[in-house]
């Protein structure tokens, strides 16, 4: 308790904002979104790379005409990349930007208490 009082006197605006609930929520929302998403696309990418390197027979199966499983997996990487891009941009625009903007104005106008 005494330590908390001590730091409250010497801490900077940025530390005060960092400690605030609004910022903590902004940060954990951000991390809860980008970390699992990064884990997902990296796993899916390496699954694809490993299949391309080691599962030749599977990747060479013809689905229709000369379209192979490997080609569909490859095009699937494009689809997921475009999809993740749009999902993230939409999410960040809607959920994060307003909060970030409010905190930024507080700090730049020196209204942090």
């Amino acid at each position, binding site marked *: 308790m005494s330590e908390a009082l001590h730091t409250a006197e010497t801490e900077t605006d940025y*530390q005060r904002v960092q400690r605030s609930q609004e910022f903590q929520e902004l940060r954990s929302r951000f991390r809860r979104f*980008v970390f699992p998403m990064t884990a997902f696309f990296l796993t899916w990418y390496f699954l694809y790379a490993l299949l391309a*390197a080691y599962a*030749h027979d599977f990747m060479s199966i013809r689905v229709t005409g000369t379209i192979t499983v490997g080609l569909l997996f490859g095009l699937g990487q494009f689809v997921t990349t*475009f999809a*993740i*891009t749009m999902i*993230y*941009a939409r999410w960040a625009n809607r959920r994060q930007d307003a909060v970030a903007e409010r905190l930024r104005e507080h700090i730049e106008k020196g209204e942090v208490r």
Partner: protein
Amino acid sequence: MTAAAVAAGLPLATAATSEQVGSPAVNIGIFVAFVLVTLVIVFRASRNNKTAADYYAAGRSFTGPQNGTAIAGDYLSAASFLGIAGAIALNGYDGFLYSIGFLVAWLVALLLVAELLRNTGRFTMADVLSFRLRQRPVRMAAAISTLAVVFFYLLAQMAGAGGLVALLLGVTSTAGQGLVIAVVGALMILYVLVGGMKGTTWVQIIKAILLIAGSAVMALWVLAQFGFNLSDLLAGAVAAGGEGGEALIEPGKQYGVSALTQLDFISLALALVLGTAGLPHVLMRFYTVPTGQEARRSVVWAIWLIGIFYLITLVLGYGAGALVGPETIRSAPGGANSAAPLLAYELGGVVLLGFISAVAFATILAVVAGLTITAAASFAHDIYANVIKHGHVNPDGEVRVARITVVGIGLLAIAGGIFANGQNIAFLVALAFAVAASANLPTIIYSLFWRRFNTSGALWSMYGGLVSAIVLIVFSPVVSGKVDPVTGDSLSMIRDTAVDFAVFPLSNPGIVSIPLGFLLGALGTVLSRETPDLERFAQMEVRSLTGAGSEKATVH
């Protein structure tokens, strides 16, 4: 007959008829038109180049879509245009794998790096890395790593220019090629010297539009010939491939030879996907927009443009295989790199070939300009202003040093390009990505997300990643000891087959050096007694997520 023609260095002889393909005069004419138009734009854009923020970051005044287009122009090098189309034409599916790695890599930049970096830094990667660590040692390490990546990338681009000259302009003498490399280098110096980041950005935007529009027209043209049926197009490539043509639509033609090449492929895949977000010239582009939100929009635009372009190269690659044929491509000067130009000639004759050739040159110019301004900023801002002068230098002096550096780097690039002309330099791009992923990315990620991360962790990670990537390349088959089993010729940089010190079996060091970079960063941090600067960390974290206190656009 064709072999003799190639040996004699005749320009663009085709296997079937050995006729001259295209007209060098048309190619040069269209390229000169590009140069004149961009020069006018660069001079107009440069009238407001006053401060360091103007020179390094274009006054932070570009919009997200503009910057996204410029990023695509910066990223889609001649290697990804000519190289990937050729690799798909000759190796089929395995060529496609490159483009996927190059594209997915942008998600790392989008989710973890772009906005946070824009909000915390000013001009260079080192601004972010040294934000809460000890300034001078970290800046020095980041600058060395930046200069190393830029140097490898630059040399690859300039050396590639020599091959392109032979292919597109019909210049075959070493002296003639050297002269063209010098002209390209001199033009680039002019653009960067006069235009700074603003001029460089406009060159990249114009080039990206021309490249994507031109190749989209070609792709539609190809697809039209196959009734817009992808399966028929692939069938055409398989048929033209003759015996073994089926392998073109299956993985493994290039990388499936042995367990070692398979592992090499995984190593390459790792370096590609983690390298992009650590490339200093890519990172620097995020400073040219006014806010973190615009940095996000830039990446969204870049991902769409780059992704669509790689889908186009898939069509162009298989289209070249089907309509030009692998034998013709292989026997043309420039080999695989000639697939896209030959396809352009097949489709649209002299004019389309001239257009595509000019775009290929514009590509080298735009990429080299982006690399040069990055290196100049890193030297002038990090090494000169902050390490040597301890930050006590007026901005005008810093920009003057940057301009002098531009000339120095330009001359170095010209000399390097002439010296490396004809050398086997493909590994330099792979090396640039490996160093970026091993030395830069771990430190960027740790410093943005790990509270405890400290100076010693940053130094261990950057120097460790840099040194391990370079050492592993030196002792790999790309430098010595790789022999073609059929012809007995050397496939390494050192042509003497008796010299063999390749103790590391993979061509790409990523699978070892990237985990090592992350590990050293963690070890260096944990083993040091240095306490993290919590006040600076709070500032960095709050700034990175809210944009508070970030550098604003300059108003003229």
